[in-house]
């Protein structure tokens, strides 16, 4: 016999279902209830750095866009600092670094406005390339999927990023790189997510 470890077990995950908007984005479900919904303003007005838009679709294994997805984003400010009490440095007033994004019911397109994050220190002092952490839930997804958005124009930093380089299959690394474009004077990064099949996006067990 050994001593029991007596850890609690994590509450098991379940799908967010098709009506996730009722709880987490009720305006989109079709009714106004809260004075303010959370997560639409990621960076706030005072954040330094380059203002960008990130957009894309999430497609399933048949190639069809998924129209009932919710994505949450988590990122550092332009100095590479997270808005979290364990970080040594303060972030700009109003910068939360967290966003909540839902897809359009008709097209499946999603988009959010933010600032481009700075580099964050990874393990053993290695710098990570600028990235936005992403968490994806939807009907049919039993446990939320974690991935990262990196930026096409950070080629040098991406090349030595310790997380990108953890992916043994070089072809798969490309699925994490958002493509840069400019539209009406605004910087837009395109990041399509493929849940399954050819060019399946890399998902992490974090």
């Amino acid at each position, binding site marked *: 016999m050994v001593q029991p470890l007596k*850890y*609690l*077990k*994590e*509450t*098991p*995950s*379940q*799908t967010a279902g*098709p*009506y*996730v*908007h*009722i*709880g*987490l984005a*009720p305006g989109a*479900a*079709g*009714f106004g*209830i*809260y*004075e303010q919904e*959370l997560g639409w303003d990621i960076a706030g007005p005072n954040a330094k750095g380059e203002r960008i838009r990130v957009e894309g679709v999430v497609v399933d*294994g048949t190639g069809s866009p*998924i129209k009932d997805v919710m994505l*949450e984003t*988590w990122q*550092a400010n332009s100095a590479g600092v*997270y808005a*979290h009490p*364990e*970080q040594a440095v303060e972030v700009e007033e109003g910068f939360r670094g*967290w966003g909540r994004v839902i897809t359009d*019911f008709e097209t499946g397109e999603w988009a959010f406005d933010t600032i481009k994050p700075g580099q*964050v*220190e*990874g*393990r053993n002092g290695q710098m*990570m390339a600028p990235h936005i*952490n992403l*968490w994806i*839930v939807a*009907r*049919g*997804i*039993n*446990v*939320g999927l974690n991935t*990262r958005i990196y930026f096409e124009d950070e080629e040098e930093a991406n090349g030595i990023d310790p997380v990108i380089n*953890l992916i043994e299959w070089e072809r*798969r690394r490309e699925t994490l790189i958002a493509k840069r474009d400019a539209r009406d004077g605004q910087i837009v990064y395109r990041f399509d997510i493929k*849940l399954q*099949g050819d060019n*399946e996006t*890399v*998902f*992490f*067990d*974090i």
Partner: protein
Amino acid sequence: MRKPGEFYQRDRDWHPPALTPTYKTSVARSPQYALISLEQTASEITGPVFGHNDIDPLDCDLLRNYAKTGESPIGERIILHGRVLDENARPVPNTLVEIWQANAGGRYRHKKDTYLAPVDPNFGGCGRTMTDENGYYFFRTVKPGAYPWRNGVNDWRPAHIHLSVFGTAFSQRLITQCYFEGDPLIARCPIVKTIPDPVARAQLVAALDMNATIPLDTIAYKFDIVLRGRRSTLFENRLEGN
């Protein structure tokens, strides 16, 4: 020196796998490649912080937060309450808990829900609250009804409330569903059965809690939520050097 470090690895045999064919939508929405395991960095061990000024105190009371003045929703009045803990049984204070649910007849207030049961003019179906300093939360609502869904021809979801919890880190983020003690639909539900271990399934069933009911007013169910535990970083650097 001890300082808070990484979160315990998720036991993915305890959680549902991605591909669970009897829950049909999972078939085309489950990745086929293995997840890439990531040793945690600041990106994973930090997460958003919310405050009481983000939400209204009424947001946790679904009997009132959408009802017309002097009216209330139809249905079984319940309190859903419990604690948010981590795997070390430590409370998770000041964390955001959000819920959503159907009304007493199993109808969601959502433009995509076309079930013939009527919407309740006094029921919205969503709530949110912050846990207190002991990790405790509560909501007041009506017990949701079962509802049919297009999976098998005659599949019905058990009565359930969806819950979303943040914890202190992005890697603790969790969405789950709470079921109610004694519901015979639980054992038949393909979504419940995505979880392979019956002990894990039981962790999602809220217990009738007579100690917390308000006599002649509201019955109560208790639902504790456990988030990933966190270890201390015992050694900041490897003794043998990096």
